[in-house]
Structures are given as structure tokens and as C-alpha cells.
């Protein structure tokens, strides 16, 4: 069964702490994505990765960075988290215009 797996599912961090969100896929998809979802704002693209070490900013990259050292693994890093980064984060992967989403990570920054 093709899957995108996100860890952790829920996370509470204090303002100023570093945050690591992890995403894995078992489909050998080249392209992976990180989105955040906020009420009334839809799904906003943070970063897109076209393959290992080939990453590109999305629409809202400020305050985030990413790492992709293996094709099946794509990490989102928040250096010094801010309260306005409280959100639900979704990872996705794609091939041939077929997109698969993970179950999301709910991040609360207090």
C-alpha cells in the first residue's frame, strides 16, 4: 500500500525552540512537498523538493528550511519556532500528476 508517513502526529513546542518534522514515502517519488494548513487560508506551499538536494521555495518559505538527503525522506525544520507557526503541516509526494498526502502533523507553539 503506497504511503506517505509523517512523524510526529502531534507536537507542542515553546517559542524559540527548534522543531523537526519528518516525512517518509515508500513510492520512490522524486518530488515531495511541505504545506501548512490554516483555517480560511487553504493549503499553502512552503517548500518543494524535486529530488535529493534539489529544493525550491514555495509561496511561504520564510522561517522554514528543508533537508532531503535521501529520496524517500524529506524534513521540515523550524529554527527558533514562533507562535504564528502553529498550524497543521502536511507532507506530500507526487509522480505523473498523482499526489499522495501524509496524515499531517499538528504543531502548537506556545
Amino acid at each position, binding site marked *: 500500500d503506497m504511503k506517505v508517513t509523517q512523524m510526529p502526529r502531534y507536537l507542542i513546542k515553546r517559542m524559540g525552540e527548534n522543531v523537526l518534522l519528518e516525512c517518509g514515502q515508500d513510492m520512490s517519488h522524486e518530488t515531495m512537498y511541505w*504545506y501548512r494548513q490554516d483555517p480560511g*487560508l487553504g*493549503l499553502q506551499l512552503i517548500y518543494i523538493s524535486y529530488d535529493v538536494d534539489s529544493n525550491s521555495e*514555495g509561496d511561504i518559505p520564510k522561517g522554514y528550511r528543508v533537508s532531503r538527503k535521501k529520496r524517500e525522506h524529506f524534513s521540515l525544520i523550524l529554527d527558533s519556532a514562533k507562535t504564528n507557526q502553529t498550524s497543521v503541516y502536511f507532507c506530500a509526494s*507526487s509522480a505523473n500528476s498523482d499526489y499522495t498526502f501524509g496524515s499531517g502533523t499538528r504543531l502548537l507553539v506556545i
Partner: protein
Amino acid sequence: GDSVTQTEGLVTLTEGLPVMLNCTYQSTYSPFLFWYVQHLNEAPKLLLKSFTDNKRPEHQGFHATLHKSSSSFHLQKSSAQLSDSALYYCALTGNTGKLIFGLGTTLQVQP
């Protein structure tokens, strides 16, 4: 750049009535258009994906027709069910491979 517009934030209707959720788009490319459905606390799941102009994909009673002339991909269903209550996103992908979403429409179906 590419964009998707969903004009209704909330649509409320009675079970059994027809559903139509609006979606228009702007793209300099010939994009694929998608409808995703998201139930509470779940991931977005693909509902429909466009084919070529005027072909009509269907899934779970929902259908949508891509009209390039009007840049539209409206979602329709003849008879709403209570289980259709969810958040619906229209999205497109252009030549960059980015999947770009509209703001979403919440559909509430009442008994």
C-alpha cells in the same frame, strides 16, 4: 502566476439537493485540475482529476468538467448525502509541478 479561485467559503444545503461547488483558475500553461476532499482531522484525498477538455471524470457520484474556454472546473453531484459534509479543495498543477490550492469550500449537508 498560477492561481485557483473558490468563491464560496461555506455551502449549506439539505440532503437530496444538488451540489455545485465553483472553481475557476488562471494558468499560462495547460494545467491538470483536481478536486480534493478533506474530512475532519484527516488528510486531503483525491476526489477527481481532469482529463482533456470536455471529458468528465466521475467518482463517488461527483463529477466535474474542465472548460478551458471559461477556465472552470466546477464540482457537481445530483443528490447530496450527509456523508458528503467535508472541506473541498480545487487545485491545479502547471509546468512547475507545484500543486496549487484554492482556499477551500466547506460543504455542510443537513438532514
